[in-house]
């Protein structure tokens, strides 16, 4: 079973992300982190198969998390789930190594459209 790490400082949003994953048909094993630093520690301790991360979080942002992971040699597939989906941020995400950026509010279809190509 695929293991996903969901990083978001909002517990409510983490729950919505997990629920949407299920609705999209991704019955994955889920672990959670409340900010980028927690997520970085979680990946260091036990690397998941994929990371879904918010962008704007206290302590360490999602972009800082992604850059830290890549700097430490982790190639973990990484996608953003964020309220900020501008072209500029999508470009920054791609340049940092993210596979996709899902903008909030999202639907199960948006999850499928973003994630399924990465599973092929």
């Amino acid at each position, binding site marked *: 079973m695929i293991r996903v790490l969901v990083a978001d400082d909002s517990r409510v949003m983490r729950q919505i992300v997990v629920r949407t994953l299920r609705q999209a048909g991704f019955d994955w094993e889920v672990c959670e982190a409340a900010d980028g630093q927690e997520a970085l520690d979680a990946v260091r301790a036990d690397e998941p198969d994929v990371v879904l991360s918010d962008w704007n979080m206290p302590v360490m942002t999602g972009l800082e998390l992604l850059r830290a992971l890549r700097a430490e040699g982790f190639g973990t597939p990484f996608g953003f789930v964020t309220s*900020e989906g501008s072209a500029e941020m999508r470009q920054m995400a791609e340049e940092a190594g993210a596979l996709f950026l899902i903008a909030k509010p999202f639907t199960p279809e948006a999850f499928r459209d973003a994630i399924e190509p990465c599973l092929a």
Partner: protein
Amino acid sequence: MSAITSQDVSAIADDVFAAMVDGEAGTIAPWPGDVPLDGHDVAAWVDVHGPWRGRASLETSSDVAAGLTRALLRLPERAAVSDDDLVDALGELANVVGGNVKALLPEQGTLGLPRVAGALPDDPGAHPVQRLPLGWRGRSLVLTVWAAEERNGVAAGAATAPGQEDR
């Protein structure tokens, strides 16, 4: 100056409620008549910093805030709602609205972290760009996009109190 229209804010609200809150479209509508602001005792907001400085806010009653929290968490209608969950849920709604407002701006800035309190902080330098009273399940809530007053070509600040700066 931004060109954020009432249609922009309405479209954002429609998307947020359809995708996040209710799981179906058409659950919110313009509020008919005057909004009973006296009953609004919960405010959630997020500030935008950068070339355009402003704020997106949501104001409503604590009853509606609890209902929104239940809806977001898919809790039963009369389930108890903790203060932590209410603050988290309302803050995240403001955050998503703010992020989508920010995406409309011609020049990108940064988004602060969401705040929730009994009322919006006083900011004599901010003025509403769009104010959208909405009805949800027969109760009112107000979405507002604020712009910071500009002086000498420099935005005067978006009412972030000292020590509240997020980035």
